């Protein structure tokens, strides 16, 4: 009988904690080799992990295995001693749970990431004792890190059999780190490993145990701030249903106003306030996709019975491996809040394999969106927002925090990216966990790396990092202080640094101030003493010295606060305009649950914002679909120092991904009227091969112009370049051409520089782009032969674009 008795025992929950230390310590000792590596080669600090490192997350025997791993063969010192490491940091970061281990005695800080439902991953370690001694590592020399950061051009991850493989590309070498999953990938399971020497893994659920998971409001930060082309005159504010009146007056002139108006027009019908939010998918009309994440997509939607707008987040539960309890906990956290400064949850229900969360729609986007937009469009060198604006926003945030804290909740992720703005100037704190992972793109604000990588702990309080004595709601006050700096300077103080460095700086240095990230002395002198004092009070290392949210509300600085209306003027009027966002979002396929991307390593992944954009442009969402290349140029001209830092890296690393986003060319292929085609040919003065090519295929695939556009006043022309990449896969590269500003040659050069186009093809690219732009009234598409030719075994074919490329105008 015994031999078939269930091999799995039900463990008491506490049993899960039986060996967490062993589990982590082994891994940490593996990681320490990274530290050893640091000694040897400072230039490649952190990331030069030359060969495969198998990080076994199991017991002592694995440590033994590790000794045999390639790294050991490379002669890197291996510390096989298992020390007891303490979990030093844990916090919920979007879909990941951050864990750091800090061993003071050893001076090792290990930063790990666990994604929900899976258990391991780890990134880097840092030896403060060593690095602190190095003069070039001080805060004054960010250049060092800049170099270093550029060193890794891209970090990709893939999940192969639940082994997470991080491929780190540097200029010199490609390195892969394999992080092997422990056997249990169902953290909440009550099944114990059956005595095979497999160590008990610390499940995410357990990590999260002490953490109250927070539900995150998905939408706006996911969205795209409008391009700089959005004129100040088109400051459409589309109100939420509660303030419908303002709609009529404003949003009339816009091209996309039909869309908006229909949304808004429905709102006045919402007389039946009492009706509860329905739980049937048929009662909602899904509209534009306003956010896309790894396992979910967020739509703006209209609740038909109520005639009220809302945001619907569709979470794919099949991809949600963790138990549903965790999801529930987060939704409960959200639904237990009822405060005007905390995002509003309406209802949730199951639609096939999806969970739909119905939330209040805040159309202004996130504060981060607005900051980014502002930094792109205006000179923010001496500060992004003025004090009254900052005070007004932060006061609302504080009220939300006060409520949170009085509820016994800690938010743990206060930052601009999690502060949402309604069109009436309402400020709400979003992001408690649930939508957290949706908003991943935002969370990785300062990182150009993929979503599988860790987010910056820029906002994290020191005690959260260390966790000697646990932490409480004062941790939010620290984050609040960082957010205050962020609102003034546009970024968190240590945003330039990799996460590990941020942890070290936060722990070792004096608390940051407004000037910490400044490039010049007195750069932020416009900000007054009261503001600075308020920041200093929040950013005290000793949590008990920080004021509570309630105390802070009485701070003199908040006397400068004005009302919502003020925010509609200062934030929304200059913010990314709704119509642009809607317009852009509309280009996406509604109903698609996310977008697929092909990564550099060739597999298809669900995209998040971060993947699409990278660098400082991460929050601009699908903008990159439209104009990744031009945008870089624009940013270059207007932005300050750290921006061209990220820009450099963005240029170097991301374009392939961002631009090669598999975009749908939705325009139907329709034959162009013959006269137009003739016309096009007649005007053609450039190489005839292109003309022939165009006559043959371009015409056939001519997209129908949706409307006759006025060519006189030049709005940017949206273009798609369709061609095969080096792996001979067809890709669409979307970009924009500002007539009068851009030159075809310049664009072609950019494409080449970005590695998207072969240098040989610069000339035909420029020539044909120029031709298309000149004749855009008649000509919508052009196909031309490439100088780079075909690969062995391929036959030149313009139809399948072998040896040919095609440029089309998309709007």
């Amino acid at each position: 009988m015994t031999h078939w008795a269930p091999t799995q025992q039900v463990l008491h929950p506490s049993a899960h904690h039986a060996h967490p230390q062993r589990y982590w310590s082994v891994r940490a000792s593996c990681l320490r080799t990274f530290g050893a590596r640091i000694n040897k080669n400072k230039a490649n600090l952190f990331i030069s992990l030359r060969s495969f490192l198998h990080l076994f997350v199991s017991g002592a025997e694995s440590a033994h295995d590790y000794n045999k791993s390639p790294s050991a063969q490379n002669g890197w010192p291996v510390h096989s001693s298992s020390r007891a490491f303490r979990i030093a940091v844990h916090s919920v970061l979007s879909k990941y749970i951050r864990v750091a281990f800090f061993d003071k005695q050893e001076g090792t800080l290990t930063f790990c990431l666990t994604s929900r439902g899976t258990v391991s991953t780890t990134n880097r370690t840092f030896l403060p004792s060593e690095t602190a001694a190095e003069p070039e590592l001080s805060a004054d020399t960010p250049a060092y890190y800049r170099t270093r950061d550029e060193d890794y051009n891209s970090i990709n991850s893939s999940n192969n059999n639940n082994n997470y493989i991080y491929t780190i590309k540097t200029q010199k070498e490609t390195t892969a780190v394999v992080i092997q999953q422990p056997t249990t990938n169902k953290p909440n399971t009550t099944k114990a490993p059956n005595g095979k020497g497999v160590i008990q893994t610390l499940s995410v659920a357990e990590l999260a145990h002490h953490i109250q998971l927070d539900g995150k409001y998905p939408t706006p930060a996911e969205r795209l701030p409008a391009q700089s082309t959005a004129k100040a005159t088109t400051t459409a504010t589309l109100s939420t249903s509660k303030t419908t009146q303002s709609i009529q007056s404003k949003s009339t002139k816009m091209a996309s106003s039909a869309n908006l108006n229909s949304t808004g027009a429905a709102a006045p019908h919402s007389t039946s306030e009492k009706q509860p939010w329905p739980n049937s998918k048929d009662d909602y009309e899904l509209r534009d996709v306003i956010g896309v994440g790894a396992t979910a997509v967020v739509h703006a939607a209209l609740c038909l019975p109520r005639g009220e707008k809302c945001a619907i987040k569709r979470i794919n539960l099949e991809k949600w491996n963790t138990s549903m309890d965790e999801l529930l906990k987060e939704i409960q956290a959200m639904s237990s809040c009822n405060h005007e400064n905390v995002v509003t949850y309406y209802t949730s229900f199951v639609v096939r394999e999806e969970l739909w969360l119905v939330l209040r729609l805040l159309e202004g986007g996130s504060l981060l969106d607005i900051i980014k937009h502002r930094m792109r469009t205006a000179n923010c060198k001496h500060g992004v927002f003025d004090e009254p604006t900052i005070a007004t926003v932060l006061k609302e945030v504080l009220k939300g925090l006060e409520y949170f804290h009085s509820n016994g909740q800690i938010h743990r992720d206060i930052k601009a990216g999690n502060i949402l703005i309604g069109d009436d100037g309402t400020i709400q704190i979003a992001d408690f966990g649930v939508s957290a992972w949706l908003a991943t793109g935002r969370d990785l604000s300062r990182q150009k790396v993929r979503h599988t990588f860790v987010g910056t702990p820029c906002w994290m309080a020191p005690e959260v990092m260390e966790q000697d004595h646990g932490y409480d709601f004062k941790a939010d006050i620290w984050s609040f202080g960082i957010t205050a700096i962020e609102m003034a300077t546009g970024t968190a103080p240590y945003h330039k640094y990799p996460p590990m460095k941020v942890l070290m700086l936060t722990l070792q240095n004096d608390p940051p101030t407004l000037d910490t990230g400044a490039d010049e002395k007195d750069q932020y002198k416009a900000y007054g003493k009261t503001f600075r004092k308020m920041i200093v009070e929040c950013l005290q290392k000793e949590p008990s010295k920080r004021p509570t949210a309630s105390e802070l509300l009485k701070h003199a600085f908040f006397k400068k606060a004005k009302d919502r209306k003020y925010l509609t003027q200062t934030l929304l009027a200059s913010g990314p305009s709704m119509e642009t966002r809607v317009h852009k979002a509309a280009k996406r396929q509604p109903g698609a649950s996310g977008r697929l991307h092909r990564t550099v390593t060739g597999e298809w992944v669900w995209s998040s914002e971060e993947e699409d954009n990278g660098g400082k442009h991460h929050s601009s969402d699908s903008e990159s679909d439209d104009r990744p290349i031009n945008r870089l140029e624009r940013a270059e001209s207007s932005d300050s120092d750290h921006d061209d830092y990220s820009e450099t890296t963005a240029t170097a690393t991301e374009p392939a991904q961002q631009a090669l986003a598999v975009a749908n060319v939705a325009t139907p292929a329709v034959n162009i009227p013959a006269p137009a085609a003739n016309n096009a040919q007649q005007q053609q003065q450039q190489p005839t091969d292109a003309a022939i090519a165009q006559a043959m295929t371009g015409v056939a695939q001519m997209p129908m112009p949706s409307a006759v556009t006025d060519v006189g006043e030049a709005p940017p022309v949206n273009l798609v370049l369709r061609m095969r990449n080096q792996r001979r896969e067809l890709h669409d590269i979307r970009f924009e051409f500002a007539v009068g500003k851009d030159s075809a040659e310049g664009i072609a050069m950019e494409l080449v520089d970005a590695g998207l186009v072969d240098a040989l093809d610069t000339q035909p690219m420029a020539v044909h782009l120029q031709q298309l732009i000149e004749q855009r009234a008649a000509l919508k598409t052009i196909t031309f032969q490439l100088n780079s030719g075909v690969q062995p075994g391929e036959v030149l074919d313009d139809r399948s674009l072998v040896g040919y490329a095609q440029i089309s105008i998309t709007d």
Partner: protein
Amino acid sequence: MPLFGKSQKTPAELVRSLKEAINALETGGDRKAEKAQEDVSKNLVSIKNMLYGSSDSEPPADYVVAQLSQELYNSNLLLLLIQNLHRIDFEGKKHVALIFNNVLRRQIGTRSPTVEYICTKPEILFTLMAGYEDAHPEIALNSGTMLRECARYEALAKIMLHSEEFFKFFRYVEVSTFDIASDAFSTFKELLTRHKLLCAEFLEANYDRFFTQHYQRLLNSENYVTRRQSLKLLGELLLDRHNFTVMTRYISEPENLKLMMNMLKEKSRNIQFEAFHVFKVFVANPNKPKPILDILLRNQSKLVDFLTNFHTDRSEDEQFNDEKAYLIKQIKELKPLPEA
């Protein structure tokens, strides 16, 4: 007790005042109700602070808590609060749950006086369970919080488990609002897994009704979440050695095997995986009844193929792979029973 500020009401006064306010809320007209609502909120906050302490007062003295609890029992206020939960405002509902759970956890030595009290007033439990009814969705989660706190105590869990109301959970776990259904499910699960002996006894005694009549329906639910969660719970129940008898019975019924084999083939990988953990028990049973054996034999080669290709990407999950290999071996070696 603070020495300055407003003079504090005594526990008895608070309880009386709250009771009056609740009654007013229940009966009063609009104008009155508004005032009553205010009073209810105020009193709830005071009681909560008395139990938990507040930022500007010391943690409560034992005798105050004792006195307060006694007043609560005597006045029957807990029941009254729960019955009127839907009338109390948003924050007030949360406070009721906080107060209830705090008083419930109260101990004198090894005794839990509130548990004893509720045993004499099971109506409290049934009212809480009815909180999942559609009538007032806004109280479901608050009720759930209190129910799960109750379920921690065996005496209270027993009352709930053995009540007719328990079977209503099969309906509650399927309501359309996800958070309510999930909350009901976690209470349901708590009741079925918390007190092992109690649960085993219950499942044995009510096998037919529980599994055949009701649980089957959850497993076949239209709702993906219900299906996934109930399948997972089934696995946990069967693999709990306390439920050995129940398991033996379950795995001797061919209908159950068929269901699991079908679920192995479901589109959802998560459901497949959970089904595997139930299915394996059927195969591992050394004393397979003939009907079970017949089904397995009939599908012998198909099952071997199927399992060989089943979730092959879980290569890191040693336990799963061991089990899978074991199952494949077992199925390969299956032989018909010698004719009797």
